[in-house]
């Protein structure tokens, strides 16, 4: 399991790719990634193709990212989710806060 952050200083878009089980075990790694990016005025692209499972603390981490990226004015795309993960995100109504594809 890991989180890889791809962005150069000055880039307007940040790509994050997550693999493995996206749960509490990823908390400190995710927070580290959050600290490395300044968030504001950026768009985020989260590649979830390698995510096998997701729990509520992962949903919490996504909310932290959203807050950092400007809350309602944030631009975060969550992509390549497996169907069962899309279901979980929809159950939490996350499709109204993030762009999910």
């Amino acid at each position: 399991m890991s989180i890889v952050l791809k962005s150069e200083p000055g880039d307007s878009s940040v790509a994050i790719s997550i693999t493995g089980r996206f749960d509490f075990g990823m908390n400190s790694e995710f927070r580290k990634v959050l600290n490395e990016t300044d968030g504001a005025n950026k768009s985020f692209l989260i590649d979830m193709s390698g995510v096998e499972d997701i729990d509520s603390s992962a949903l919490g981490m996504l909310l932290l990212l959203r807050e950092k990226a400007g809350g309602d004015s944030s631009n975060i795309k969550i992509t390549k989710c497996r169907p069962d993960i899309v279901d979980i995100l929809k159950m939490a109504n996350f499709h109204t806060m993030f762009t999910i594809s």
Partner: protein
Amino acid sequence: MEILVAEDSDLSRNVLVSILKKYGYDVIEAINGEEAVNLYVEHQPDIVLMDIMMPVMDGFIATQKIKQEMGDKFVPVIILTAVNDTDALVKAIEYGADDYLTKPYNSQAIHAKIMALARIRKLHDTIESHRSILEEHQMRMDAELQIAEHIYNCVLNQGEKGLSLIKSFVKPVSLFNGDIILSAHNPSGGIHIMLGDFTGHGLSAAIGAIPASEVFYKMTGKGFAISEIAYELNERLRHILPVNMFCAAVIIEINVERSSLNVWNGGMPDLLVLDSNGDIKSQVASSKSALGIPASEKFDRNVEIISLDGDERIFMCSDGLTDVRNKDEEKFGILRYLEVIKSHSKHDVLVERIKDAVYEFSADGVRPDDISLVEVSVNKSLDSWHADERVGDGISTCPSSWTISLHFEADALKTTNPIPLLLNFMMGIQSIEGHRERIYTVLSELFVNALDHGLLSLDSSLKESPTGFVEYYKERDERLSSLTEGGIDIIVSHVRNGEGWKMMLQVIDTGSGFDYEKFETSLHKNKGLSGRGIPLVFSLCDSLSFSNEGRTASARYSCDL
């Protein structure tokens, strides 16, 4: 460093002592085992060198006694033996010795061995001191957890205990449950039930449960609707919880008198309603964000309304139930959950069946989160549907005469339900204990009647079919949001009339009125017509009459306080 040397031979001892002193160690000398034990107790040296064959007490016994004496401490005991005496060596280790030195002595080997053992001893001391710090922390933590658990349970259980129609199965991962099940009667005879699931589990998840349950119980008791309770819970939790924590929740109101089930589902697995045949009649998926996430203006207050026949079962669960995994890391999942429900739907207590199935499935697997499952039996004939009539608790306020008059314009009607507030205001003037639920019912039915049929001109015959029921409420929402004029007056007077005190309740709307004479006639003939509300009011009051072309409803209620 202080070293105890036990050796009966003066020659041997003197050689050893002089080597030790050369390396700068302090030395204590004993000439037999017994003296060694006594000196150990007196001086508490850092290392012991022990000969085996000695008068009075041999080295085996002395080693054993010294080891007993040191308890949790670690003081290395090094046995002094001849090169070829392995039997004695093994025996000494069995008696508790840690290492050995062979005679004749080599001064460098002695020094090296002592340094090595001193290092082990230091390591042991470090671990030991950490262990005792941890033990102390653990004890303090346990004590604090016990207190917290007590408070947690008291706060969560302040509602009505053991409503017989609710069966539940709860399995927390740790001492504290991040899932909460709350239930209480509201003043109009309905029941509110909430199943909430806080992010994570354990103490941090449980902390949010305390304010949430306070809001739930207080607002339910005051007669607020579940949409208003959900809104308030969201506000409260949004302010106190960190951004990454929230509470997924399903909140329902069951009102058997009105044959309705209202559901607000934010982030929980589907709520299921089974009909009397055990078939799934309705399934309410989450359509809202969990509590504690959306900003006030984005909060979705809409509830799903389902009509009830009076013989149904309702199921709610937390995702901890569908997330349990077997040894192959496979999830139990919603499909298996539905399968168990379908195949055992005739069973009396389905909760037990589902629990067994989950346990069997995850026998060698993991249950990563708190598990909660709630089954509610809707049965019109059950006593527990009717709110306990609270008997006056001895506070006898003298009855007095007063009148409250309230006026609401269209814009106020869109956002406010004045009845709970009015009731609380009345309670402030006059103790109406024992009548509270009834007066609440009368007032809210008359208010709803004035709003729905008076101002919004809705036709209640729509409600007769299950689909019409839902359509009715959809239509109601639409008409209410486009309402621009009109208003409702509520006038409540407490007056002495003849022998006793009466509550005179008047609700007046500015709508177009209705054919109240025909309505009143049918009311007398038939109590089972579609408008269940008004016949109920009729049965609770001394009198109920309409005037002003149906725009004014006047009820007289006897309350001998």
